[in-house]
């Protein structure tokens, strides 16, 4: 659905996006992560034709954004919820966009209700909170029920109910065969929503793959009623063990290995799991 190849952006002698390549397939939610200034927003703007790349290209459904006849009907985009005229009503903002795309105006009212802005839709946007502007931006992205969603920090300003709604929306979109590219700094939210991660640091892609394999750690973590005893059994079996407040970390071991050693020694286990890293750990490790 999106193919980014060697995308690069230079401003004078500063390279803000450096040879970025990735591909997004239908039916997936891909998290696009990176610290402030890493090049996320510039990459999204190059994909959507708002910023010309210095080199490389981004294709959406096989074409450059500028070559798509009606791009917002193919891809709903939310890059900046503040990019609205404060003097217009929310409904007028959506109605103008709907008319541009050729979407019937009744869809505007449907979406205003869907994002919880029904009555507020007739008020001027200058009176909207950040969360309301965000919901208006999400409604604009959904106007044509596009196959692709590109969302930059869509959860900004949303309350917990709104965040859960958005997560369900994005998972549902991918479940229907749609494609989602989600840029966010809310790592917990990303971890629960995406199938895949593309991590950018200092303008370069530093990780790209399924979230499960990126977060998979080395070894297992085990809890037992007798940490000292189990630790001794594991070390006797040639494994390395570190004890952190009663949780034994056993790098290089499998859950089966540890379970067998515990059973042989008669140790009662209360927890045994793969030593996955949290997304936060991964993020800081990759982007430090």
């Amino acid at each position, binding site marked *: 659905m999106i193919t980014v190849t060697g995308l690069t952006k230079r401003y004078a002698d500063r390279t803000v996006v450096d040879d970025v390549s990735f591909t997004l397939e*239908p039916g997936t939610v891909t998290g696009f992560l990176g610290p402030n200034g890493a090049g996320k927003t510039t990459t999204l*703007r190059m994909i*959507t*034709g*708002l*910023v*010309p790349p210095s080199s490389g290209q981004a294709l959406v*459904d096989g074409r450059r*954004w*500028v070559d*798509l*006849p*009606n*791009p*917002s*009907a*193919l891809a709903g*985009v939310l*890059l*900046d919820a*503040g*990019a*609205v*005229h*404060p*003097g*217009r009503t929310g409904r*007028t903002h959506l109605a*103008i*966009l709907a*008319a*541009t*795309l*050729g*979407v019937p105006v009744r869809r505007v009212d449907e979406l205003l*209700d*869907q*994002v*919880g802005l029904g009555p507020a839709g007739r008020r001027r946007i200058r009176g909207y909170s950040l969360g309301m502007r965000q*919901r208006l931006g999400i409604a*604009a992205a959904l106007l*044509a*029920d*596009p*196959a692709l969603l590109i969302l930059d920090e869509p959860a900004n300003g949303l309350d917990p*109910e*709104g965040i859960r*709604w958005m997560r*369900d*929306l994005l998972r*549902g*979109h991918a479940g*229907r*065969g*749609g494609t989602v590219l989600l840029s966010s700094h809310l790592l917990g939210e990303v971890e629960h929503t995406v199938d895949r991660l593309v991590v950018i640091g200092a303008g370069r892609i530093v990780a790209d793959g399924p979230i499960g394999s990126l977060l998979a750690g080395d070894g297992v973590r085990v809890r037992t009623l007798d940490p000292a005893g189990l630790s001794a059994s594991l070390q006797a079996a040639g494994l390395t063990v570190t004890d952190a407040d009663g949780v034994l970390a056993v790098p290089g071991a499998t859950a089966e290995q540890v379970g067998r050693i515990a059973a042989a020694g008669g140790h009662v286990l209360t927890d045994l799991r793969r030593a996955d890293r949290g997304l936060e750990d991964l993020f800081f490790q990759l982007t430090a």
Partner: protein
Amino acid sequence: MTAAVLDHPVTATTLVDRRPPLTRLVGLEIRKILSTRSGLALAGTAAVAPAAVTALMLALADPPPGSATLLALLGALVALLMVAIGVLSTAGEWTHGTVQTTFLAVPRRSRVLAAKYAGTALLGAVVATVVVASTLAVAALGTGPGFSWAGTGVAIAATIGAGAALTVVGAGIGAAVGNAPAALTGTYLVLLVAINILNGAKPVWGKHVDPLSAVFDLVEGDAAVRPIAVLTGWVLATAVAGVLVTRRRAVS
């Protein structure tokens, strides 16, 4: 927020390959201008104020000016407001960031600007038509048989044409500058200060660059070729500058 109950597979809609026609974009550009208080206020003021000014001029001037002179004075005045409408239609989008939505939906920027120029020209012509109608109506009601209607036909056509031209000039300047306060300030400094200084220092040069004098001369029927050439030059120069700069400017 209500739960998304969509369960149909996501497929590219038939809209994806339907490029929005230019006529639709032109209509939407006019709608954008009139959907904000500033645009509506400017268009309303430009359309309504001349009737009041006409009544005042007819009451105070002795003898009263003829219809062509009235339209020339008001046409130059309204031209200043039309420039502002044009500036807001383009630079206003950059100032508020709505240009992002506009270019995401219609990424061919020269197409967007063509629609803006056509839309502002149409709006400028309509507002100028209202100005002409209200001015002449007030003149007809407020004057006697001695009132001069000489040159009214030419004045009407020239006022409407100049209204359209000056709105496009504003749109071109706004597109080139990309910032509404800077574009408005710069435009009025050039039109009201720099060109007046030039008119004082080198009147012959001033005559060939001053768009407001061109509007006055054209509407009053004093000349045709030079004023039309001056206005055409302003339209072409600003419209082309707007397209060239806009096509290269990043939306950040």
